[in-house]
């Protein structure tokens, strides 16, 4: 009975304040979309970093079948060349600059590749043999990349020495900048959303002051009096969160889907991955509505 009563109160509250409720929905929708966009950018950065980015700075790619580099004239790397390279990495002259290094076999490389490009059609056209084996090096001081490069580039069996960070860092700084902009816009919109929800609840409390006054007098509990107001805000925020989630999914499905066909060598996040943001958006929406109703009800709906 009490639940049915609270639900009917919520229904009448939403109907009476329809225009305000719609604006709450739209503002939470926009603010949560920006929050989600920032989240998607971070997911995309993680995707592009791949398996090695946070662990190592320098990769020494070994010669493969058909490598065109000068050091690979004698064909793919031999076991002996590989042993020599490993010995050189352990020699004091080089070891002093290195924290640690790992060997990535062709099979390992294929595994990591499949993971990173799981959303790209390119994964089907690559076989383990096409990927080079490599030494992945974690530097004590990443700035000393030059030393490693000079030492190894001319060694037999080495195709190339690459500082992966240099390649991606600029792109990532642009994407991080975009994330910051999105978060700032989201923060402003969230403030708007909180204020708007507070105003809506205030109006709602005012238009229903007769009812709430009588409820107080006949001894209705705080929950019965305040819950409909809180839930009105929460419902509006949840609808906003649902719209934001739908928008993010649509962006990743249509926009990123197109991009991944155009740029096959870049790994993109899948629509499924953006769904991890959905619970966060819903939680944020509920928290927004909760905070603003707590602040408002304390002032305008004393029991």
């Amino acid at each position, binding site marked *: *009975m*009490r639940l049915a*009563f609270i639900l009917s109160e919520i229904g009448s509250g939403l109907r009476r304040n329809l225009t305000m409720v719609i604006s709450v929905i739209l503002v939470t929708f926009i603010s949560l979309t920006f929050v989600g966009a920032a989240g998607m950018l971070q997911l995309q950065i993680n995707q592009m970093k791949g398996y090695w980015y946070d662990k190592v700075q320098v990769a020494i790619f070994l010669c493969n079948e058909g490598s065109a580099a000068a050091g690979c004239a004698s064909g793919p790397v031999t076991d002996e060349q590989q042993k020599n390279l490993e010995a050189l990495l352990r020699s004091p002259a080089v070891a002093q600059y290195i924290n640690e290094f790992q060997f990535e076999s062709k099979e390992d490389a294929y595994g990591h590749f499949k993971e990173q490009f799981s959303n790209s059609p390119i994964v089907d056209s690559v076989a383990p043999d096409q990927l080079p084996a490599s030494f992945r090096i974690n530097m004590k001081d990443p700035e000393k990349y030059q030393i490693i490069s000079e030492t190894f580039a001319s060694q037999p069996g080495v195709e190339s020495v690459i500082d992966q960070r240099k390649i991606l860092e600029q792109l990532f700084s642009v994407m991080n900048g975009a994330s910051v902009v999105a978060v700032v816009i989201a923060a402003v919109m969230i403030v708007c959303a909180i204020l708007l929800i507070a105003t809506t609840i205030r109006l709602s409390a005012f238009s229903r002051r*007769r*009812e709430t*006054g*009588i*409820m*107080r*007098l*006949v*001894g*209705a*509990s*705080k929950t*019965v*009096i305040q819950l409909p107001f809180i839930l009105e805000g929460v419902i509006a925020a949840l609808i906003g969160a649902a719209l934001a989630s739908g928008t993010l999914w649509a962006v990743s499905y249509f926009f990123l889907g197109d991009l991944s066909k155009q740029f096959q060598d870049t790994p993109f996040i899948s629509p499924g991955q953006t769904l991890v943001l959905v619970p966060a958006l819903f939680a944020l929406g509920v928290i927004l509505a909760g905070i603003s109703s707590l602040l408002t009800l304390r002032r305008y709906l004393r*029991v």
Partner: protein
Amino acid sequence: MPTRCGAIRAMIRFENVTKVYDQKARPALDSITLEIDRGEFAFLVGASGSGKSTFLRLVLKEDRATSGAVYVAGQNVANISSWRVPRLRRGIGVVFQDFRLLPQKNVFANVAFAMQVIGKSRSVIRATVPEVLKTVGLEGKERRMPHELSGGEQQRVAIARAVVNRPGILLADEPTGNLDPTTSMGIMGVLDKINQNGTTVVMATHDDDIVNEMRKRVVELRNGVVIRDEAKALYTSMIPIVGQSRRLKDASGIDDLAGPGRVSPDGTSSGEAMQ
């Protein structure tokens, strides 16, 4: 101090209660000591600003007494935590001058609202509401909207709503203030009937005809002080009361005013009581 048993006989008990809204102004209630017993019918009379409404607000714990203790059904309301205040209010029905009905709900729904919000089941509501509407004389008008009712009928709905949860106390704040004398007497009949059923009724009023007609206990307030407390009394005392200086803080002097026509110790401004 009264024992718990003794306190329970008194439905409402004020012990040296003072209420100050504004430090600079005089107190709204000034060291009031008063007891209203279970099943009693008491009028609270006095000019506007004499403290009648403050008295009612303190019983409902809408306000907190500045000093002194308010007991309702034996319980000191100061000791009731805020989340238990609704429970206190379920034991008290309230009726106002302006009825305070919900305009978009019909008679039945207005009365049922008071039961819905405290979680009564539909079947209990269906059984109880018609019974209460019969008590207040509104049989067959369940489906009317408030604007289709006369003032007296609207007030009967308000009374039905106030008593539908069977409170031990009914507080009425000038319930006949908007009604003509004949209608007012009808309302008084309803209140009397509710009182006969065992509910303690406290009614604040300006209506001298009603008070004179009913011959119930009369508590007269002026400037926050009880200046008269008579059983079976009239709106104005038959014997002129000597004016009560509000500077008189000696509570024992006020306590002794329980009999008719008692003269206060401060006899300097006589005649002020007659207005």
